[in-house]
Structures are given as structure tokens and as C-alpha cells.
């Protein structure tokens, strides 16, 4: 079908948006994070429902447990990883202009990292300093 990939440079493989040999990576990571999030949701939703109307002391007490810190950190990382994978597909589908598409992808990827960092930082401060 195609020439043995060993004879072709990486650039030649990706130049015309052909295979760069990571075809299933995006798909696989989206599924992997969705399985993680499905499980984490089973913990997250009841935890947050139990905090409805709670004062700050109750929230800090919740965040003071190692299990909460671990699970919430995992949730934050999985949420923003999954979110940027999904947004990437939406942008690929609906932004036809190449320049705008690239700009949108950059903004989404950086915003996801920024939001995750903000959430993890808040979690650390609330858990250890609050």
C-alpha cells in the first residue's frame, strides 16, 4: 500500500496531513479519559451534592482528606485532558479557515493547561494552607 515508513522522513509523512503513525492516539486517550471520568463522576457527584450549602469550614474539612485530594487532582487532570481532546475535534469540524483553526487550537490547549493549573493550585492551597 505505502512505502515502508523507515524510508520516509517524519515530515514527508505529515506534510499533507497524512499518517504520522499516531492515528489512534487521540481516539484512545479520549476513551481512556472517559472511562476514568465515568468512574470519578461516581465519586465526584455525591461528594459535591453533600456539600450543597456548606460553609467554607466544611469544604476545607472535605479538602483536608488525602483521599479527596488524590481523587480531585485526578478528576481535574482527566477533565481538562478530556475537554481539550473534545474541543480539538469540535474546532477541526467547525473552523474551516486554517489560520483561525490553528489559533483556536492553541488557545484551547493553553487554556486547558491554565485552568488545570489554577484548579490544582487552589486545591493545594485549600488542602494544605486553608
Amino acid at each position: 500500500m505505502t512505502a515502508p515508513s523507515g524510508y520516509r522522513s517524519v515530515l514527508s509523512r505529515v506534510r499533507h496531513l497524512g499518517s504520522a503513525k499516531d492515528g489512534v492516539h487521540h481516539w484512545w486517550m479520549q476513551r481512556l479519559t472517559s472511562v476514568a471520568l465515568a468512574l470519578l463522576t461516581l465519586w465526584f457527584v455525591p461528594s459535591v451534592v453533600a456539600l450543597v450549602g456548606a460553609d467554607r469550614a466544611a469544604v476545607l474539612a472535605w479538602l483536608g482528606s488525602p483521599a479527596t485530594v488524590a481523587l480531585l487532582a485526578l478528576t481535574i487532570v482527566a477533565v481538562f485532558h478530556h475537554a481539550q481532546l473534545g474541543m480539538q475535534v469540535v474546532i477541526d469540524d467547525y473552523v474551516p479557515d486554517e489560520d483561525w483553526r490553528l489559533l483556536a487550537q492553541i488557545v484551547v490547549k493553553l487554556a486547558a493547561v491554565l485552568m488545570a493549573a489554577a484548579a490544582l493550585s487552589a486545591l493545594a492551597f485549600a488542602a494544605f494552607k486553608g
Partner: protein
Amino acid sequence: MRGRPLSPHLQIYRPQLTSVLSILHRLTGLALVAGTGLLVYWLWSAAAGEAAYACAQRLIGSWLGRLVLFGWSFSLFYHFSNGLRHLLWDTGRGLSLPVARAAGWAVVVLSVALTLGAWIAGYAMRGGGV
């Protein structure tokens, strides 16, 4: 790009359960991305101090805050339920039309039931007060 056929042709495409649920999966995904802002803000306010947390509580507890939270929770439960349907498809199961439709209705029922259940539990948690 110009002149190429687009699929589905929305002007002549009759909406059906499977197609509506499909676009709803994407729309709720986008809503969840927007909702992460609220989650990060809430965590951040808890880390920041009493005044910031009280402000966040007022904002989220207002009728507009609750409306947004209601939409966000439905988006979460819908994306969760329909995500499970997608994971089932990924195993190669449930792809026939009757099963896809039945699973689709199951997703509708499950996401509505989970949303109502979470809100009833949330209000009960507050001791019935508004």
C-alpha cells in the same frame, strides 16, 4: 472546499432521536467545558478565604447561579450516560438501529432521573430550606 457536498445536509435532514442525541452529546460537552470555569472559581474561592468563598456562595446560590448549575448538572449526567453508550459502541456492541434507539431512550431517562435525583438530594441536604 467550495461546492463540495456537506453531510448531513441540515436543510433537508429530518431530525431523529439518534441524530438529536448525537449533537446533544457535543453541545453538553461544550456546556461542561464552560462549567469547568465555575468549578475552578468555586475551588479558588475556597482557597482564597472567607470573603471570597461567601461571595462565590452568594453568586452560585442566586437564582441565576442555580439555573446555570441545573443546566450544568444535566449536561454532566447526559454526557456521562451517553458516554457510556458510546463506550458500548466502541466494543462493537449495540450498533443495530433498534438497540441504538432503545439505548438512546435509556440515556434520556437516565440523565433526567440522575439530574432530578441529584437536585432532590441537594435540597434535602440543605434541610429543605431554599
